[in-house]
């Protein structure tokens, strides 16, 4: 089942996949146990001549332990999933690691507007660059993404990076990722945002370090310092 996941190319994707497979193993075991018991009982206790049903009400504690003990096991598994999950959650959504690589992604019906801060590393200055639906980042570096929306709720989804974050108009939502493998990854919107929702998508381009420098030089040819401030 886990092989249906898209290839993971982010630093925290492995943690999420580990939670997914933990839950998968636990639930699969319960699936076989319960469905197995149902099928077994249906077979064993099918109606047969000369054999009546056993009169058990199961209200007394001594009988009810047969359902209460499995329920306690469920509880223990729940807590395990929660505790393991808390770490993964804190890593992805808890605190955003600092980085001087910042971009601003603005959702609008029905495009992603991506603003790069340019050589000065600051958004909202003259050297900002805006591209539609194209997010370029270097591999193995933490990228901070400031998410905004111009109209309705959109959701910034990177299936290969196990990152999903809804974007609320009127607020700025912070997200981050660290891509671990160069390539081109799809970046759809995953929250219904109007008639053009289907097909609202961009591309994340993860470049190897040198290729990324090349891209920066092409975009900001005038700036010699550009690479430096980008923090290699």
């Amino acid at each position, binding site marked *: 089942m*886990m092989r*249906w*996941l898209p290839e993971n190319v982010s630093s925290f994707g492995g943690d999420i996949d580990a*939670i*997914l497979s933990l*839950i*998968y193993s636990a*639930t699969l075991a*319960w*699936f076989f146990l319960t*469905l197995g*018991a*149902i099928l077994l009982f*249906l077979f064993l*206790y*099918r*109606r047969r001549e000369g054999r*009546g*049903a*056993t*009169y*058990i*009400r*199961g209200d007394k504690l001594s*009988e*009810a332990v*047969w*359902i*209460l003990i*499995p329920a306690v096991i*469920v509880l223990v598994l*729940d807590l395990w*999933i*929660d505790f393991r*999950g*808390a770490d993964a*959650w804190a890593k*992805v*959504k*808890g605190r955003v690691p600092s980085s001087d690589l910042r971009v601003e992604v603005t959702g609008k*019906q029905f495009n992603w507007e991506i603003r790069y801060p340019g050589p000065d590393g600051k958004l909202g200055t003259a050297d900002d660059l805006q591209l539609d639906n194209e997010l370029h980042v270097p591999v193995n570096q933490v990228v901070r993404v400031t998410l905004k929306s111009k*109209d*309705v*709720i959109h959701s910034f*989804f990177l*299936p*290969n990076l196990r990152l*999903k974050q*809804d974007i*609320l*108009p009127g607020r700025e939502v912070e997200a981050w990722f660290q891509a671990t493998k160069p390539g081109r*990854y*799809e970046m759809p919107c995953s*929250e*219904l945002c*109007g*008639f*053009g*929702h*289907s097909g609202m998508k961009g591309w994340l381009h993860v470049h190897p370090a040198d290729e990324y420098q090349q891209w920066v030089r092409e975009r900001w040819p005038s700036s010699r310092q550009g690479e430096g401030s980008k923090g290699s």
Partner: protein
Amino acid sequence: MAESAVAAGAGEVVHVHPEELGFWRTYVFSTDHKMIGKQYLFLGLFMAVVGGLLAYAIRWQLAFPDTEVPGWGFVGPEDYNALVTMHGTTMVFFVAMPILLGAFGNFLIPLMIGARDMAFPRLNRLSFWTLLGGSLVLLSSFFVPGGAASAGWTGYAPLSARPIYTGVNWGLNLWLLAHAIEFASFLMGGVNFLTTVMIMRAPGMTFFRLPILIWQLLTAAVVFLLSVGPLIAGAIMLLMDRIAGTSFFVPEGGGDPLLWQHLFWFFGHPEVYVVLLPAVGLAAEALPVFCRKPLFGYRWIIYSTLTTAILSFIVWAHHMFVSGMDPRLAMPFSFTTILISVPFAIMVFAMIATLWGGSIRFTTPMLFAVGFLSMFIVGGLTGIFNGSAPANIHVHATYFVVGHFHYTLLSGVLFGGLAGIYFWFPKMFGRMLNETLGKIHFWLTLITFNATFFPMHLLGLGGMMRRIANPMQYEFLQPLQPLNVFITVSAIGLLLAQLPFLINLVWSLAAGRPAEANPWEAATLEWSAPSPPPHGNWGEAIPVVYRGPYEYSPPEVAQDWLPQDRALAARPG
């Protein structure tokens, strides 16, 4: 108390024979809970056909994007959003609730607790007509300029708050109005359910002798009454945003889009149990009858149900892990959400334990009850993926969620609801359904249901988003397209698999084998009334209750069931 009640009752009984009433009094203005229950059933089934046709158009578009849907026409992206919105709204509010609560609640509550009718028969009539009005408003929204609502069944603001964002104006207003009417209808219904069970029980019918279905309906009614208020408030605010131009949910005017989500899901999650608990109850009624064995852990099921009801009020933000709310809230809500698996596990284990040591008859209602139990287990287990905050990051708003809630909600309506229909049809209409057709219906439904909804989990893990009209627009989804085609074929199969049922229904209504009063040899009170029960349900005397509802194969009698209302000469120790 018991004696005085009987004495008081005997004098008041008035016999009215339905054949003396004309058409209007029998169908339109009847206050008989049984007639009203049947009307809910047929309304729900009719709306299910509507919702099913919407599903067909949705599935066709997904499998063969931008080709003409046979018998329907071309589905554009705006149409597609309206289809998914209306499919969800129709199925949850106008199919699941009318069938599981309206039909079974109204038909069975008085019969199962030993009352002659609901506490407020005329309010009952009014609530049905209100629901019918709501259904008509919802259906009419397809035909207004701009088309039907298209902001999702969750109606997230600000998409839903300003007509410019969807291009839908009146469709969405009517959609809100239909909700308001539906809520009013089920508020009346819920008040009626609760009052009836609280004060109309037959002599001897203590709370711990009530059938489990009554407990589930009661809990569902309380949960509905207490959770729908905030959404009504939210709907008023949304309507103000749309019509008066306020900005409750629109950030430009200082509003907060997240507020809508909180109000919606404060109701939305409990609503899942409003639908699910009666389905559990329906299956739990059929199991002991066909195992000839008491329902295992009756009291534990009740305690679990009540626990679930309480927990359902503190889990709503699990729908909002990635919504942009404070991420520190996620783990507490993840914890409460996953905790709900414990009471549900107890209910499931109790039902499985009921099978143990039984003498199992594989009748159609039994098959559907076991089918519900099995599908519900799958739905519960996949819920853990959604409920875990980090896992939710990946599966949120994908087909994994769609698969999950169809395994819970649709299994409730389809398997739970059908178990109920096959089980009580003889009581409702005085005729038996055809068993062979019923079994064909069951196996076809079971196979096509799983073939339709299980692969959705795989699509969701693969990242396929909900509510996209054309998966082929995404390169990473193109390799998954064969799965979409497979699902669509299965879904069409699932719809066609309901034909044997419809044929069975129509044929048996007209010419089915007449049913005796207690064809399944069941112990609960409704089976002590004739099939179908007359106006007033019982003749001169109301039954007196001596014991719990599931006395099957008790040691003290030779017969393998002991009805709730049979007095035994010697009191069992």
